[in-house]
């Protein structure tokens, strides 16, 4: 007579899920409110009330960090922790780590909210937080990783569902991206310079920036899609096999797309083409995921009429498809020549952020709410209203930005008389044209924000009198925890797929980077490896499939291989760029290092976020050259830590601003932009005239710049002070002769010194590269 094995109950830790969910809703409201406010400021510059911490350029980083790290971050953690426990049939490994993760993350968000508006910034987009907070982020991310992988190690379900693969890729890749792009040398507790400068910094920044989109805003939400859409639709994913292809192709291709943010700039041409091509290829895996998500709703389409959860999920996945078609389109160089620096890019970002991230979050929250608190949703009608308000808001937003971006792009690029003159030489003429469209953006954002407030209200009303519940399951006590025959290190590396992939990659690298003989050997080797791999697969396919079966249940090897897949793109793009940036490779010009006063002025430019509206990169395009001067060379920004190429032209490019206007013009312009530029929407910066430049910080800053490779002499503190005083005095005297009276130690003097240096460079005789 057989005895049934005993069963044990596992209760999931859903407390941390509830915490992250409520935090996401709260911070989402904060982030969206800031977004609506700064959008309004672009039409009504007076809204900052003359206060520095309410100015657009100080608040924009707060908006982006809040919606990315606070809203999507908290939402992602809620979804990952809820789904992972159930998919692996194990409670989260450590309640302590879960609590540390939650409270640590909220503390980081509060730190960001307190520092960013007051100008404590690294000056790099989505990487603005000062270095002590960076360390906190890295620490909390490690806590998250340990908690997650420890839970996987304790799992009772040997097979790793596709959502888990996406979470693994997210955790590993975000760690790699974040650490590399935040490598800095501190100059004080609240300031640092990034290790990379100029074109290197540009590439690292957008390798990080686009992959923040990829691995923070996309892959974890795809994992969430693969769990919650089947749950809500009560049917399995459309094609599990498609999800296999989707995952591997996405994580490999995404990493290469970063250079599409730098098209037509001083970035080396081969990198631009690489980024463009991989961005185009990315369309396929992205739509694979979109189709998989949408077609999961087969047989459940009628429920869209009444179920707000499915409405949000269906619309969210559709916006994902839209954004991942628009992205590759924008990554084509000729399209990018029109769109870069315009509102079209903003529209693209927000179709993904509001449509994909925001709607997937809302759908997940409405699904989780009654299950985490064992009480029906307070009002389905309000949830449906949220959907429609949000949808209309998104359509207003992106429609306005498409029209605005394309209009401004065409106007700025328009030439007459055989392409010899600009049709619209005055930048402000284009701004005046798009202003009404910018107002529609405010309306769209406000509608979306209102919908989010309805969610918050609905949640609040549902929670009143509700009791929290944790999910639980019963499992047999003797079920194996981990896989049978787990893969060791040898099994991870010495197997046909990895060996052939590695050999093929090495041969392709030899083809790319070797001289004639090595390059030829690389081509032949790559072809031979492909043929051998195919032959081996055909004759020994059981070894390939047997290995992959074991990989699926071996979390550590799976993680290692995923990490290698994502690291390859970064290494191949970044390492050659670092090696290549030597003095002889700076084309025909090299930047003249800033004087101490100019460096102080540049740090004020970064502090006040001027780079958010003004670019410093004249592209290799005729309209750019006609409007701003000779195109920017790679060497002209080589000493800029961080780089200032910019990503948006709400105002004109400043790459060759130095010497264009007298000192007095800048003095008047920064105090009252409309006095020099009628119709400008730039806010006034009155605090620059009241505060003294922080000269005491300069010795430490210059020492760090020297460490980073900027050729400063080893000045003493006294020499630095004297240098600053002499240059400041000269500028102040020049301003006085023009009728502007200011003490030389004011910040405006330092900023004018910096602005007048822009575009100054020394000619360099290009070194002939023999033998290639």
């Amino acid at each position, binding site marked *: 007579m057989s005895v049934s094995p005993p069963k044990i109950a596992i*209760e*999931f830790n859903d*407390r941390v899920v509830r915490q992250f969910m409520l935090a996401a809703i709260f911070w989402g409201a904060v982030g969206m409110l800031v977004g609506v406010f700064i959008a309004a400021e672009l039409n009504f510059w007076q809204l900052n009330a003359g206060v520095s911490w309410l100015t657009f350029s100080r608040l924009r980083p707060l908006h982006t960090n809040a919606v990315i790290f606070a809203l999507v971050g908290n939402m992602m953690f809620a979804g990952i922790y809820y*789904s992972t426990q*159930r*998919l692996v049939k194990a409670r989260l490994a450590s309640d302590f780590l879960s609590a540390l993760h939650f409270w640590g993350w909220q503390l980081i968000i509060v730190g960001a909210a307190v520092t960013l508006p007051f100008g404590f910034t690294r000056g790099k987009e989505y990487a603005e937080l000062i270095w002590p907070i960076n360390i906190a982020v890295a620490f909390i991310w490690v806590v998250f990783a340990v908690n997650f992988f420890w839970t996987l190690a304790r799992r009772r379900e*040997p*097979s790793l*569902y*596709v*959502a888990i693969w996406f979470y693994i890729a997210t955790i590993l890749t975000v760690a790699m991206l974040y650490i590399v792009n935040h490598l800095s040398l501190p100059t004080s507790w609240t300031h640092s310079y990034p290790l990379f400068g100029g074109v290197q910094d540009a590439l690292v920044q957008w390798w990080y920036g686009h992959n923040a989109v990829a691995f923070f805003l996309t892959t974890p939400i795809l994992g969430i899609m693969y*769990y*919650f859409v*089947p*749950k809500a639709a*009560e*049917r*399995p*994913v459309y094609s*599990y*096999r498609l999800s*296999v*292809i989707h995952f*591997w192709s996405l994580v*490999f*291709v995404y990493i290469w797309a970063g250079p599409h943010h730098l098209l037509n700039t001083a970035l080396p041409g*081969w990198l631009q*083409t*690489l980024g463009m*091509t991989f961005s185009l*290829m990315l369309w396929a895996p992205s739509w694979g995921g979109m189709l998989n998500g949408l077609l999961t709703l087969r047989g459940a389409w009628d429920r869209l009429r009444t179920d707000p959860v499915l409405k949000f999920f269906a619309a969210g996945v559709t916006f994902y498809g839209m954004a991942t078609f628009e992205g590759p389109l924008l990554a084509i160089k000729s399209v990018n020549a029109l769109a870069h620096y315009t509102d079209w890019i903003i529209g693209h970002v927000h179709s993904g952020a509001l449509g994909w991230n925001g709607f997937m979050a809302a759908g997940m929250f409405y699904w989780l709410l009654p*299950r985490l608190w*064992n009480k029906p949703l307070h009002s389905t009608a309000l949830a449906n209203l949220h959907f429609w308000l949000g949808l209309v808001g998104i359509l207003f937003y992106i429609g306005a930005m498409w029209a605005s971006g394309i209009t401004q792009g065409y106007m700025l690029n328009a030439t007459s008389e055989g392409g010899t003159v600009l049709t619209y030489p005055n930048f402000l003429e284009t701004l005046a044209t798009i202003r009404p469209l910018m107002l529609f953006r405010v309306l769209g954002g406000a509608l979306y924000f209102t919908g989010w407030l309805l969610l918050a209200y609905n949640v609040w009303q549902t929670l009143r009198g509700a*009791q*929290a*519940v*944790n*999910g*639980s*399951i019963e499992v047999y006590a003797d079920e194996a925890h981990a*896989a*049978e025959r787990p893969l060791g290190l040898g099994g991870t590396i010495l197997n046909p*797929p990895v060996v052939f992939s590695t050999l*093929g990659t090495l041969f*392709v690298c030899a*083809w*790319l980077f070797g001289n004639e003989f090595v390059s030829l050997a690389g081509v032949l080797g*790559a072809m031979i490896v*492909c043929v051998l791999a*195919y032959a081996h*697969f055909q004759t020994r*396919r*059981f070894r*390939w*499939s*047997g290995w*992959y*079966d074991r990989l*699926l*249940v071996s979390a550590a090897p799976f993680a290692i291989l995923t990490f290698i897949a994502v690291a390859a793109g970064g290494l191949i793009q970044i390492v050659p760029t670092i090696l290549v940036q030597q003095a002889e490779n700076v084309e025909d010009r090299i930047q003249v290092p800033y004087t101490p006063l100019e460096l102080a002025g540049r740090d004020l430019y970064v502090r006040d976020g001027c780079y958010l509206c003004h670019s410093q990169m004249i592209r290799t395009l005729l309209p750019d050259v006609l409007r701003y001067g000779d195109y920017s060379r790679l060497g002209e920004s080589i000493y800029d830590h961080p780089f200032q190429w910019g990503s948006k032209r709400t105002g004109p490019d400043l790459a060759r601003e130095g010497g264009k206007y007298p000192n007095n013009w800048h003095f008047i312009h920064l105090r009252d932009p409309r006095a020099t530029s009628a119709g400008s929407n730039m806010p006034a910066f009155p605090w620059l005239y009241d505060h003294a430049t922080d000269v005491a910080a300069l010795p430490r800053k210059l020492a760090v710049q020297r460490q980073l490779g900027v050729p400063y002499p080893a000045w003493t503190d006294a020499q630095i002070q004297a240098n600053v005083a002499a240059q400041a005095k000269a500028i102040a005297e020049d301003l006085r002769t023009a009728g502007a009276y200011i003490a030389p130690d004011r910040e405006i003097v330092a900023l004018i010194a910096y602005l007048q240096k822009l575009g100054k460079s020394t000619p360099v005789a290009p070194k002939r590269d023999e033998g290639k």
Partner: protein
Amino acid sequence: MSVIPLTLGLSLVLVGLFLGCFLREQKRSRLSSPERDALLPLAEEKPRVVPRRRSGAAAQVTSNNDRK
């Protein structure tokens, strides 16, 4: 260096790799199967009320049982 052969070559290598993975998936013997894995999210669970104070085991809810 000409980037078109480069990007075409890399794309073809990638395509071949993932095609190989997909074809291999078709016939493998597995600890699991795509059909089984696809059903993992749909497993049932029982919600347990979280006690308001620390006073013993959590009580099973009497309604909304076997929630999906």
